[in-house]
């Protein structure tokens, strides 16, 4: 607190502090509005940049594609065989894929993994990945690129992507015959959606190092191919495609290097495929560029909403945690007579992308890792969008600084008074102890919620004793903790000073959390900022009654659990219409417990932050704000009583 207690800043005649203190509410509100305004400005073309490739080595599109109609025919043949295999066998057609890879001439291996489901009372799932390595013919196996295609069973709820594996194999077959690869290629077929790729990546990077007793036992791999530099995931829905949707968002809002995305854009444009981020059927290449600010903002918001939930949009998203640049090409099946891109152009695009990736001399290190796409060919860099988050955070720090300043003045006065009365050398200090204990307790509550939810033993206990499902257990545990949070303020009796110290602590805590989150995942940080900043503005001891009411209402509405609940309501209403009230409530509760359970499971298996942020930061922060507000009511009540007497 050296800066905050600096006498040059906090002296009474310090001009800036005076002005700040006088207009703090206006200034904070202005900052909030400025942040939103800045965000709206991001849609303007002056605030975003046109895309460019900054990595020289990629040199996209300098080569003729060498892939021919033969490969297309081969892909079609593989596709027919694959459909037949999938029809006749349950699960991944492992022998067929192995046979094809061996026939092509790849070094082929399988990888088994086990998931010890944390809440299942010893439930165990297993899965198998298959991969083939094409060794670079004229260089050591020090670098690699992954081409992956997920296997989806026929009865999967997700879209059918039966063409991915045939196209992957056809590309492998053509790549096998070339002499110019400078990196090992890994052709990977995974199962169980994201679980398979997570297990494979863990085995690739930590194989044999991690604890076998963990939740996901990913084992080790029989063969590797050096440091992975990039990955391309294929989700091709059919042999005739309408357009390609490029998916970039990864786990916890990670993104691939912008150069990679731009490279894909260049190559697909060269092959005359309509492709892009959040591509839709109506959107044609080259006509997407619009200078309309509303369209731009809509596009930005759609990306922000996708990125903010921290869940990867495809298998590519799990590569980002190992800093492997990855994205998914999602080929959307053409409706009849509407074909725009055939297998050949897809194969050519993959080849073009590979030739460029092959030219890489080191990991992607240029261009941007943090960005927001405005269009396929326009983006906002971190330097341009960060002011939004910083303006939000500024509110918290300015407020806490002024409170601290105020407090110091008061304490000084207090000390002076006492100094006058008492003998020299004895200086009274404020007792923060209770504030610190309250702060620690709130954080501890969050920690224990986190621990209890993630602990399989708890859910097992409930399951055995009362026959609850995992989802119900998680929901009940959360509700219990929410109740404790509501009782929390009544456990402490703060005087005004302690309350202020508590408020300063919570302001700084939320400010830091917000800053950190927005640096790592701007979308999430920005959305949190929109909701949390008003809390920071209103949070103050001794304001008028209307403000206090508003503040209380806002705090209660902003409870993290309530926010999840809103989402649950929204989802339920979207999915089921015309439900009776009782059914509706039931469905909402189910949706809520599902969201919570997925949060916990994602956190345990993949390391998704969402659950941690909610339990360790947002929940304690809410408790602190709530207590401060409640005690503020109590204080003002008691002071009024004093006056009356």
């Amino acid at each position, binding site marked *: 607190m050296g800066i905050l207690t600096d006498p040059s800043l906090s002296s009474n005649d310090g001009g800036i502090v005076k002005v700040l203190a006088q207009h703090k509410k206006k200034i904070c509100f202005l900052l909030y509005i400025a942040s939103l305004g800045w965000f709206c400005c991001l849609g303007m073309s002056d605030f975003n940049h046109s895309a460019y490739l900054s990595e*020289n*080595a990629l*040199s996209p599109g*300098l*080569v*003729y594609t060498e892939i021919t109609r033969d490969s297309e025919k081969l892909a079609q043949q593989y596709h027919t065989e694959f459909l037949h295999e999938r029809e006749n066998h349950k699960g991944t057609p492992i022998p067929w894929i192995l046979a094809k890879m061996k026939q092509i001439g790849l070094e082929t291996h399988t990888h088994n993994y086990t998931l010890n489901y944390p809440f299942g009372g010893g439930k165990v799932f297993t899965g198998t990945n298959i991969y083939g390595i094409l060794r*670079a*013919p*004229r*260089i050591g196996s020090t670098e690699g690129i992954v081409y992956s295609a997920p296997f989806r069973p026929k009865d999967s709820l997700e879209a059918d992507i039966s063409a991915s594996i045939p196209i992957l194999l056809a590309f492998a077959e053509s790549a096998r015959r*070339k*002499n*110019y*690869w*400078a990196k090992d290629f890994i052709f990977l077929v995974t199962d169980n959606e994201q679980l398979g790729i997570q297990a494979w990546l863990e085995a690739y990077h930590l194989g044999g190092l991690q604890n076998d007793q963990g939740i996901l036992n990913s084992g080790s791999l029989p063969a590797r191919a050096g440091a992975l530099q990039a990955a391309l995931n294929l989700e091709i829905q059919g042999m005739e495609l309408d357009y390609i949707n490029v998916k970039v968002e990864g786990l916890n809002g990670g993104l691939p290097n912008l150069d990679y995305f731009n490279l894909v854009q260049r190559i697909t444009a060269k092959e005359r495929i309509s492709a892009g981020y959040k591509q839709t059927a109506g959107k044609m290449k080259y006509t997407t560029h619009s200078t309309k600010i509303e369209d731009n903002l809509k596009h930005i918001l759609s990306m922000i909403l996708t990125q903010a939930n921290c869940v990867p949009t495809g298998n590519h998203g799990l590569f980002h945690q190992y800093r492997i640049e990855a994205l998914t090409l999602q080929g959307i099946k053409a409706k009849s007579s509407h074909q725009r891109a055939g297998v050949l152009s897809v194969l050519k695009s993959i080849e073009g992308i590979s*030739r460029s990736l*092959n*030219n890489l*001399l080191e990991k992607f290190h240029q261009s941007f890792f943090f960005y927001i796409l405005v269009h396929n060919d326009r983006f906002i860099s971190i330097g341009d969008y960060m002011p939004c988050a910083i303006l939000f955070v500024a509110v918290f720090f300015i407020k806490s600084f002024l409170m601290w300043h105020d407090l110091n003045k008061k304490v000084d006065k207090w000390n002076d008074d006492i100094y006058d009365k008492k003998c020299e050398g004895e200086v009274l200090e404020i007792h923060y102890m209770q504030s610190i204990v309250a702060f620690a307790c709130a954080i501890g509550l969050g920690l224990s919620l986190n621990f209890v939810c993630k602990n399989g033993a708890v859910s097992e206990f409930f399951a055995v004793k009362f026959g609850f499902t995992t989802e119900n257990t998680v929901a009940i545990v959360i509700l219990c903790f929410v109740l404790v949070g509501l009782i929390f303020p009544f456990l402490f009796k703060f005087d005004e000073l302690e309350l202020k110290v508590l408020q300063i602590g919570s302001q700084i805590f939320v400010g830091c959390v917000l800053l950190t989150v927005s640096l790592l995942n701007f979308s999430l940080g920005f959305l949190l900022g929109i909701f949390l900043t008003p809390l920071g503005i209103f949070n103050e001891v001794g304001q008028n009654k209307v403000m206090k009411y508003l503040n209380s209402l806002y705090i209660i509405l902003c409870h993290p659990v309530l926010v999840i609940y809103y989402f649950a309501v929204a989802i339920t209403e979207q999915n089921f219409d015309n439900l009776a009230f009782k059914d509706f409530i039931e469905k909402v509760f189910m949706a809520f417990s599902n969201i919570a359970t997925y949060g916990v499971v994602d956190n345990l298996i993949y390391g998704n932050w969402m659950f941690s942020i909610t339990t360790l930061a947002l929940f304690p922060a809410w408790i602190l704000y709530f207590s401060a507000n409640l005690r503020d009511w109590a204080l003002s009540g008691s002071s009024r009583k004093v006056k009356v007497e």
Partner: protein
Amino acid sequence: MEFSCKFLAIFLAITILTVTRTLGNSNVPQKFVDRIQKSNHTNNWAVLVDASRFWFNYRHVANVLSIYRSVKRLGIPDSQIILMLADDMACNPRNSRPAQVFNNANQHLNVYGDDVEVDYRGYDVTVENFVRLLTGRTVNGTARSKKLLTDAGSNVLIYLTGHGGDGFLKFQDSEEITSQELADAIEQMWEKKRYNELFFMVDTCQAASLYEKFTSPNILAVASSLVGEDSLSHHVDPSIGVYMIDRYTYYALEFLEKVQVNSQKTMGEFLKVCPKRVCISTVGVRKDLFNRDPDKVLITDFFGGVRPTKILSDPIDIEFTPEKTFEEVNINIPLEGAKPSYNFPSQFASELFD
């Protein structure tokens, strides 16, 4: 008296001036004028440097190898060519034509043939090594093939290519030589009598900045672009997937390919090979340090290894003088009667310590 002296001096000066002027204009026989324009070098050397590495800089290696091929074809022997290649494109795993380097998409000519002698390769190509090479201050034990063994009669061609900026040329990916360092190195060459005339040729971005600081005499310099300009590549070979050659070198090479050993083409013509129309960048030329008129300098003075040969038809009388023995040469005062005795000085000057 004083006044008349001054007047006389002025009069004398004017007469001398007019006399010399008239002499210069007409009275000097043409053969003397030509004599001055003739090179009097006795040997030719070439220092060819590709300073940049990485696969996407394939064109720089192709540039250098093209010039190498030309000077070698025109008669400079491998022993007098110092070839520096910062990267090995021929063996790059991305090269779809292994062990070959082409300078044109038609792939008619493999410039990395069987008889290419690379003197400095890979990470040996550093600023330090380049400056040591030019100034002759090579590290003890440096192979003879890695030394620039020039003398006061040498015409030296220095060709540099890579990525440059205003006042520097990047070497590898980590260091650069500045124009001042380059000028200092060449000044040292002049002071150490390591060249007769020097032709300095650069193909990089902002190439003209590299010769700006030169002060040493007898240098003719040409650069592919002026300060503030980029030098551009000529074309792509889509089967290899890289840019093949830079524009300036491409047109220079087009010219050089037509030059034969006995060619009468001049440096003046060579300086004009790449007009802005085709080069896009403006070619910079610096002639002020050069004494001769480039239009009268044969291109083979720098690019060829041809020395003027005089054929004599008359027999020459070669007289053999009897050789003197070692003793006769070395001992001036023969001691009469006594045989000369030789003393070897002791290996260690131990008498000093006794």
